[in-house]
């Protein structure tokens, strides 16, 4: 009986990558340090990538405004802290604001377009939201770089010549925790099931009594919450900082994370994000022809190769084409 190897390709690939990183890190402290700080950045890409995946699953739309919305909500958190709220107080309030804001954007900007338009007009509307929200941040809060406190201690620990901070671990931990919560939502709750049904088979869902339009709004609200978490993690990281354009450099890698993971898989987005973070750092330190300018094109080429081999991403399910 022939053994089907296909299901084992991706796990084997991942195991290979993990072994490569571990062996490299044991061999060289520099390699280990590059990997660790790369993974820390990857945690940020993963968090925003998750928000993209959620909205894609819930509404079948790529939200180009996700980064801008995350930036806006991070400024909201900063503003609450300026007004005297403590970190966790501001954090929780911001999540509620983000939830309401995400729903509001869906109601004001997306739903009227969706009703009469098509997927492409919705994409244009999301680009409109991107332009408007990013502009609003600069308009309201000004161009200055601000200080955003971290949820986790910034104290660093040294293990065998490798420095890492609880902040790095915290960022990665938060993105993994978000995945678990999301997975549980979609897998075990009626709400999650209804959301998936609304996105994939709106008419059928309507027939069984799902309020489809409300589910889509809910998707935007939840994605905004995830975006807010990603924004607050990113702004506290020294490699992003709180400023109006802070997500410009993150969004593209968050997209890459989501695509690598298969666009519909939360776990895929997190693994994709971490992989991209580590890959960027290692490419720029060990591959000499990858100059700083060519880093993004090189990451693009790697992504393209992976997708040419697996067109629906590492964890995407291949769907049967419909005529």
């Amino acid at each position, binding site marked *: 009986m022939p053994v089907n190897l296909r299901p084992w390709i991706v796990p084997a690939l991942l195991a290979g990558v993990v072994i490569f990183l571990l062996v490299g890190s044991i061999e060289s402290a520099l390699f280990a340090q590059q990997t660790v700080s790369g993974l820390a950045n990857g945690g940020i890409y993963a968090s925003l990538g998750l928000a993209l995946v959620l909205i894609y699953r819930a509404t079948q739309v790529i939200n180009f405004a996700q980064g801008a919305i995350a930036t806006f909500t991070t400024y909201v958190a900063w503003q609450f802290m300026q007004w005297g709220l403590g970190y966790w107080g501001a954090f929780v309030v911001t999540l509620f604001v983000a939830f309401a804001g995400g729903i509001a954007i869906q109601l004001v900007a997306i739903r009227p377009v969706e009703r009469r338009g098509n997927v492409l007009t919705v994409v244009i509307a999301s680009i409109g939201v991107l332009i408007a929200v990013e502009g609003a941040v600069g308009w309201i809060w000004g161009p200055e*770089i601000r200080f955003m406190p971290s949820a986790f201690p910034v104290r660093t620990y*040294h293990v065998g010549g490798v420095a890492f901070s609880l902040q790095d671990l915290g960022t990665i931990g938060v993105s993994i925790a978000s995945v678990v919560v999301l997975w549980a939502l979609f897998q075990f709750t009626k709400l999650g099931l209804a959301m998936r049904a609304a996105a994939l088979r709106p008419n059928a869902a309507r027939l069984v009594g799902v309020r489809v339009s409300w589910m889509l709004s809910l998707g935007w609200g939840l994605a905004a919450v995830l975006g807010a978490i990603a924004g607050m993690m990113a702004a506290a990281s*020294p*490699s992003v900082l709180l400023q109006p354009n802070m997500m410009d450099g993150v969004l593209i890698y968050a997209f890459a994370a989501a695509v690598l993971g298969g666009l519909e898989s939360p776990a895929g987005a997190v693994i994709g994000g971490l992989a991209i973070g580590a890959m960027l750092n290692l490419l720029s330190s060990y591959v000499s022809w990858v100059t700083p300018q060519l880093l993004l094109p090189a990451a693009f080429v790697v992504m393209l190769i992976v997708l040419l081999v697996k067109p629906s991403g590492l964890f995407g399910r291949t769907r049967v084409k419909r005529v």
Partner: protein
Amino acid sequence: MIKRARLTLVALAALAVVVASAAVAATAAGTPGVSAKSITIGGTFPLTGPAQLYSVIPKAEAAYFAYVNAHGGVNGRKINFKYYDDAYNPAQTVPLTHKLVEQDHVFADYGSLGTAPTLATRDYLNKAKVPQVLVATGDSYWGAQYKKYPWTIGFQPDYPGESRIYGQFIASKVPQAKIGVLMQDDAYGENYYNGLVKGLGAAKDKIVDVEKYDATQTDVSSQVVKLKASGANVFALFALPTQTITALVVATKVGWHPTTFINNVSASPLFMGLAQQSGANVQGDISATYVYDVWNNPSTATSKLYKSIIAKYDAGANPLDANVLYGVASAWTMVQALKNAGSPPTRAGLMKALTSMNQVNPFLFPGIKMKTSSTERFPIDQQSLEQYKGTGWQPFGRLFSKAR
């Protein structure tokens, strides 16, 4: 039928009026932008987009002009400063500059920000003989290529001149130096790097590692980690503000404590404060300065005047932002030049005034003299070193001059 004919006639008449008035507007004035009551100048700045950090500069400049206007203007003429947002995109700078010249009829293009935007409009403005003055970029082109571009002049000290000071300082004061450089991988970073090498002279082999980053990339942790591994004990940072803060924080985080040199553009006390808040140890870091030290001298007449101008005409701006102070110092220079450009001022007169300066700008570091001639076209050519102690910069040592 008659109704339609009448409509056509009215439309034609309206068109004729528009064309005629446009023709009149173009021929009436002697010098564009100058009337009996006002002088109109304009510039392009990144008010939105990735470089919007600098949007405080034109606002501070406008504030100083408003202050001058409130005190009688320039020889009885009020300054009218028009500035447009080019988002740091030359494809925006070019049409907006055409608009300033052809539609708004500005007397001069003043203070426009950025190397590429200035390069993109330099040919056009020089061909049209429109002064392109006190541009806000530290490239050395503006002072060096005056023969080909006589209508263009810069303001601040040039980048290679600044880093040359660091080189000289390291060569003479840090004998055991092993230098690691983090630079932006473009002309900006290269300018600084070349100046450093020149300043080091024979000691240039003390550079043990050079790491580069791209301007679109904010994370420089990988480069800092490599610099640490190279064994460098001196860190020369030629970066933009965001990457500078990141580099300072990451260096401390990975346990690297070199003697750090930070280029002036990124050394604003605001950025240093942010780096400290984010966990960087910046004590003892070194930079160079040429603006008045309002931070250590809050109650001198100059500081009080400066703060009152900002409070009154640019409410909401932070007077402790070095970019705001930069704007006021630049605007002061422009006002002096306009005063000396003749009455009514002419474009040739403005260039003459800017290329025969010999004056002390109260908003610059004490002792600096702005001195230019027809062949010496760098308005600010002196700088002081400063060291970070406690929560602020402390200037030290002599003034370095003729830095090139």
